[in-house]
């Protein structure tokens, strides 16, 4: 086996009966875990949408900096955001932002110690998905009405 580079892995090393070293599997045990069930799929989606929102913040910063530096720079940002790639990116970002917001409310509810039984977990999970679709559609409807 390869050299240990992370001190946290030291406790995850075992020995086979013949004495050879073996690296024990680490959580979340992807080799034994069904990642396609709703609970775990929504969980990793919360993390992914959080990272996507972080990247989206860079575009908000770009928009603000361009607005502060002048009309030409601002028109450049607005051209990009209005392009095909820009609109697709903004649509994805809107969905990611609403998902992360609603799943975040679900996490705050969990933090209060409630909602851990399976029926409630599925119920709140579906509510997050339906809410994301509804709020994303509403956001783009408002944008379309403002555009016309």
């Amino acid at each position: 086996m390869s050299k240990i580079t992370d001190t946290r892995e030291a406790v995850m090393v075992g020995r086979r009966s013949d004495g050879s070293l073996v690296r024990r599997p680490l959580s979340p045990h992807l080799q034994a875990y069904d990642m396609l069930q709703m609970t775990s799929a929504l969980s990793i989606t919360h993390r992914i949408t959080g990272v996507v929102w972080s990247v989206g913040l860079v575009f908000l910063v770009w928009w603000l900096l361009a607005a502060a530096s002048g009309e030409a720079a601002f028109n450049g940002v607005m051209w990009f955001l209005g392009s095909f790639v820009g609109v697709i990116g903004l649509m994805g970002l809107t969905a990611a932002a609403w998902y992360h917001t609603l799943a975040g409310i679900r996490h705050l509810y969990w933090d209060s110690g409630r909602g851990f039984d399976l029926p409630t977990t599925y119920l709140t999970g579906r509510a997050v998905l339906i809410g994301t679709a509804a709020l994303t559609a509403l956001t783009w409807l408002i944008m379309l009405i403002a555009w016309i």
Partner: protein
Amino acid sequence: MAAPTIRSLRTPLGRVRGLGAARGGTHHWWMQRVTSIALLPLTVWLVFSLATMPDSTWQQATAWIGRPFNAVLLLAFLAAAFHHTAAGLQVVIEDYVRGEMARLGLLLAVKGVCVLLWLSASLAVLRIAVR
């Protein structure tokens, strides 16, 4: 009166402080929750505000940013959002990046980028709002 039985190797003072081995206690976790609650109304306000101005000119956009109400909420959003982002990305890096040096280097880089982006965006809002 018998002396109290100590059933833990942790010192009584350490238990009362509740800061654990990393000396941070629940501060990181707690601030992630506090900023998330602050971001709930701020995000709803920002997303729906930006949605109503897709074809705004530079004059309209700077007028909107420069209004005191919007400028203050933008500064509040940026502070909460970049604190929350830095805290969230830190957890992701700590979970997936192996190797002390790689992890520490990436953590410092991400924190630095978050601080610089937050300062740049806040300066932009202030420059538009204060003139």
